[in-house]
C-alpha cells in the first residue's frame, strides 16, 4: 500500500505539468492582441498602448518562453522585480477576486469545505443507508418510495430546487436565509472581538463561544446543504441500490445463507462491503466535486465559495482566475483519486494496490 502511495505521489508532478501545458496551450489560442485586450476595458487613448502591454508581458515571445515565464516568473523591466511564476506559488492576480488567485482560494476554500462537509453527512450517510434498504427490500413499499424520491431528486434541476427553497423558506417564511451569515452576525464576525480560527463559521463561532452566531450560521447552511444533498443523494442512492442488488444476487450470498448465517450477518458481513466499491468511487468523485465548489448552488444562495468564484471569473473572462482554478481543481482531483484508491484496499482487503 505504502509503495503504491509513494508511486502515485511521484507521478503526481508529471500529471500536473501535463495539466499546466494543456491549460497554457488553451490560453495561447488567443492572439497577443486579444490577450492584451483582457487588461483594458476600452480602446486606449494613446496609439501603441496595446503594443506596449504586449511588449511588457512578453506576449509575442515564443510559446515555450512564455510557458517558462508562466512557470518561473517574469521580470518587470521597470523595477527588476520578478512577478508571477507557478513554481513560486503565484497563480497570478485575480481581477474578479481582487487579490492573488492563491489568496482567493485560501479565502474561499473554508466556506466551500464547510458546505461540502456538512452536505456530505446527509449525502453519504443517508444515501448509502437508503440504497442498502432499498435493495434489501427490493420491490417492497420502502423500495418504491425511495425510488420515487430518487427520481424526483435526480430530476429537479439544481437552480429550480434552490430557487424554490429560497422563495418558500426565506422570502416567505424567513427561516433559512442565503449567504453565510445575517447582517448582524457578519458585523460581529468582522469586528475585532471575534477570532477567525478556521474561517468556518460553525467551528469559529463555537470556539468563540458565540452560540447565537453558531445557530445563525447553521440557518444559512440549511438550504444549500439540502439543495446539494438532494441532487447528489439521489444519484448515490441509486448507485448503492444497484450495487447491492447485484451483490445480493451473487452465488456466494446464497452460499452464506445456506451455511446458516443470519440475514443480518449476510447483509452486513458479506453484501455491504462488496457493494461499497462502486459507491466509494461515486461518493469520492462527488465529494471531490463539492470541494471544487458547486457553481449553481453557491450562486443561488450567494454563498461565497470557490464555485461562485469560478462562475464569476468565467463570466468576466478573468483568464488568470480560470487558469488558477483549473490547476487547483486538478490538484484536488488527483489527490482525491489517490484517497479513493487507497480506500478500496481498506474496504476490500482482496484488492492489493501494490
Amino acid at each position, binding site marked *: 500500500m505504502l509503495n503504491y502511495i509513494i508511486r502515485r505521489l511521484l507521478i503526481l508532478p508529471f500529471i500536473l505539468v501535463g495539466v499546466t501545458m494543456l491549460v497554457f496551450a488553451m490560453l495561447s489560442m488567443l492572439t497577443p492582441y486579444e490577450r492584451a485586450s483582457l487588461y*483594458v476595458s476600452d*480602446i486606449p487613448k494613446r496609439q501603441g498602448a496595446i503594443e*506596449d502591454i504586449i511588449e511588457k508581458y512578453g506576449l509575442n515571445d515564443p510559446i515555450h518562453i512564455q510557458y517558462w515565464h508562466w512557470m518561473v516568473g517574469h521580470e518587470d523591466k521597470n523595477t527588476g522585480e520578478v512577478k508571477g511564476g507557478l513554481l513560486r506559488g503565484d497563480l497570478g492576480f485575480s*481581477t474578479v477576486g481582487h487579490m492573488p488567485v492563491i489568496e482567493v482560494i485560501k479565502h474561499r476554500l473554508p466556506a466551500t469545505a464547510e458546505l461540502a462537509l456538512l452536505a456530505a453527512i446527509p449525502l453519504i450517510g443517508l444515501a448509502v443507508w437508503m440504497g442498502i434498504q432499498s435493495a434489501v427490500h427490493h420491490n417492497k413499499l420502502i423500495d418504491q418510495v425511495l425510488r420515487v424520491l430518487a427520481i424526483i431528486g435526480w430530476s429537479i434541476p439544481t437552480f429550480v430546487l434552490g430557487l424554490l427553497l429560497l*422563495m418558500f423558506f426565506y422570502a*416567505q417564511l*424567513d427561516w433559512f436565509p442565503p449567504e453565510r451569515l445575517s*447582517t448582524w452576525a457578519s458585523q460581529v464576525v468582522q469586528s475585532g472581538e471575534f477570532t477567525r480560527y478556521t474561517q468556518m463559521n460553525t467551528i469559529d463561532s463555537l470556539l468563540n463561544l458565540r452560540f447565537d452566531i453558531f445557530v445563525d450560521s447553521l440557518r444559512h447552511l440549511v438550504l444549500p446543504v439540502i439543495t446539494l444533498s438532494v441532487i447528489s443523494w439521489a444519484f448515490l442512492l441509486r448507485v448503492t441500490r444497484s450495487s447491492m442488488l447485484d451483490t445480493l444476487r451473487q452465488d456466494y450470498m446464497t452460499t452464506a445463507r445456506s451455511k446458516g448465517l443470519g440475514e443480518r450477518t449476510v447483509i452486513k458481513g458479506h453484501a455491504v462491503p462488496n457493494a461499497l466499491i462502486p459507491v466509494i468511487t461515486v461518493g469520492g468523485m462527488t465529494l471531490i466535486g463539492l470541494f471544487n465548489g458547486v457553481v449553481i448552488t453557491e450562486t443561488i444562495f*450567494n454563498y461565497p465559495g470557490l464555485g461562485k468564484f469560478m462562475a464569476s471569473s468565467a463570466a468576466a473572462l478573468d483568464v488568470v482566475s480560470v487558469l488558477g482554478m483549473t490547476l487547483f481543481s486538478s490538484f484536488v482531483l488527483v489527490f482525491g483519486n489517490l484517497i479513493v484508491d487507497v480506500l478500496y484496499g481498506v474496504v476490500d482487503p482482496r484488492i492489493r494496490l501494490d
Partner: protein
Amino acid sequence: MRSKLLFLLSLLIATSMVLAACAPAAAPVAEEPADVVADEAPAAEEPAAEEPAAAEEPAPSGPEMKNPDTYVYVTFGEPETMDPAWTYETSGSAQQNNIYEGMVWFNREDTGSFVPILATDWSVNDAGDVWTFNIREGVTFHEGGTLEPHDVAYSVQRALLQDRIDGPHWMTHEAFFGLYTVEDLAIGDSGKEFADLSDAELVAACEKVQGAVVADDEAGTVTYNLATATPWFLAMLTNNFLAATYDMEWMVEQGAWDGSCDNWVQWHDPQQEDTVLFNVANGTGPYMLDHWTPGEEIALVANENYWRAEGDPIWEGGPSGVARIKNVLWKIVDEWGTRQAMFEAGDADFITVPSQYRPQLEPDYGIVCDQTGACEDNSSGSYIQAWTDLPQLAMTPAQFNQLIDIEGGNPFAGSGALDGNGIPADFFQDVHVRRAFSYCFDYDAMINDALNGEGIQSQGPIIAGMLGYRDGEAPLHSYDPAKCEEEFKLADTDVWETGFYFQMAYNTGNDTRRLSAEILKAGIEAVNPKFNITVVGMPWPVLLNARRAGKIPIYVGGWLEDFHDPHNWAQPFLHSQGTYGRVINMKPELAAEFDGLVEEGAGLTDADERRAVYENIQLRAQEEATSIWLYQPVGRNHFQQWIGDYYYNPAYPNNTYSYIYAWSKGE
C-alpha cells in the same frame, strides 16, 4: 397499483411545495408606518408632492425592518479598486462618493448648481481658465490628519501623473493641458516614444503638472490653471477621479508617490492592485471604509468625527453632523432571484432590478415617486417605494465605421467589395447609406420590446434635458422603410441593385446590444432581399481587438456620462480624439467640421452661445447620420418604504452613486 398510488402521492407533495412557494406572501406586518419617505418637497415650480398617507392608512404588508442602523444595498458587480484616481466605472463611485470629498458637490437634485464642501468658496478669472478655491479649515481625515491646501494639490497631481491606459484622466488632461494623456504631455514635440524620454523630459512633464495645480498653505488656497475656459469644470470637480482629496503625508507613509518629480514614473500607469489605495481608504467624508471582502460585501461606518457640525447643513434643509445611518453595506449578489428574495425578506433596503424583472415587482409598489420627488401613495398593503420614469444619463447609438480595414481580408466585411457578398472599406462614407440605415431601424420595437418601454429615442449625441438638446423637435429619423429605400437608391453606388453582406458584432452576454443588432438586421433585410446582415456574438476582448483594428462595420456601444455637460456627449462621439470619434473614421472634411464645432462649444462660457453651438452639433450629427442614434434609457429605483429623504439627481442616477449621507432609515 400501490406503486402508482405512491407515485401520485409523491407528485402531489412536490406540486404542493411548488405552488406554496409561488403563492403570495402572508408576510408579517411591518413595524414602520408608510409615511417615512419622500418628505422632501421638490423645487418651488414643481408640482407639490402628495403627502403619503400616515397613521390612518392600513400599514403596508411586507417585511420587517431588520437592521435599523444599517443601509443594505444589494446589487451585482463590485469596484475594481478603492483608488478614486484609478476608478473609471460605476461600482467604485458608490463608496467613494461617501468616503471622499472634493471642493464642491451638487446642490441636492440640482445638476446645475453646486455647494462648497472642502472649499468655503471659489472664484474664477474672466477668461474662465483659472479657478481659485479657499480651503476649509478644521477638516480632518479618517486617519487623523488635518486637511491643508497642499493635500488638495497633491491629490490632483497624483491623479494626473498616475493616469492609466484606459482610465478617466483623458478628461482631466484635456481640461488642464488640452491633451489626453500624461504621456502625450511628456512627449510633447520631441517625436520620441514615451519609453525613450530622458529624465529631464520626464521631470519637465511633472513640473507642468505641478504648475497646473498650485497650493498656498499660507493663504489657504488652491489654484487650478486650466488650458482654456472650461465651463464644466465644477461639474467635473464632483467626480472623485479628480475631486477625491487625500492626506499627502499619510499617502507617502503608505508608499504612494512622494511628490517628487524625479521618480513619478514609478507610480505611473499601475495595475489596479499596485496602488496604495487599492483596498484601503482615508478620506474626509461622512463615511469610512470598514472592510471590503471581495465577492461578498463592502462595509462603511459613519465617521463619528465628521467635520460638518450639527446645524450646518450641506444645503438648505439638508443633513448636518454625523451621518444618521450608521452603517452602509453593499452586498454583492449576482443572482436576481436571490436579490429579490432578500428584498422580500427585508434583508435588503435597495436592490438592483434589471429592466426585464421590473414588472415582477409592480404589484408590490406602495409608494410611487417620480424624479421631482412627487409621490403617490398606492399603499393598499404594498411595501415597495418605487421611483419611476427616471431619465438615465446614458445613450446607446449604433456607430458606423466609415473606413473599414479590409486589408488582408476581413470576415466582418465579407468579400470587401460591393458585389452582393460584402461591403467595401468606404461603404459608410456615403451619407445616403448611413441615412438609409437610420430609417430602417425600428426604434419603437427597440424601446417597447427590448427596453420594456423604458427608453426614449435619441435625437443625436446630446441627451434629453441637457443644454443643446433640441427641445420640442422630433428626431430626424424614424422607422420608415420607404425613406430607407429612397436613400439607398440615392447612394453613389448601385447598392440597391447589387445588395451587400456584412457582419454586426456585439459582446456576448449583452442582450440589449444583441436585440439592437437583430432589429437593424430585420429592418434592413425587409427592405431588400439582396441585403444580408449576420449578427455575431463575440467575447469582449475579441470584439475590442477587432474594433481597435477598425474591422467592425457597425458597433453598438453606449456612453454613460462622466460629468454633466454637453461637452461630455459631443466630444466622445464626434471629436476625432473622442472615445468613439477616433474609431469611426469620419471623412477628413466631416471630422474637421465636427472638431471645430466641438471645440467651439467647449471654449464658450456664455450659456446661450453654447446652447446654439450644441443644438447645431445635435442637428448636424443627425443630418450626417454619423451614427444611428438609438435610445436613452429610463430607469427605476426600488427601496423599502423605511428609507427616507432619498432624492433623485440625474447626474448620479443609478443608486450606485448615491449620497447616503443625506438619507435616513426608519425615521
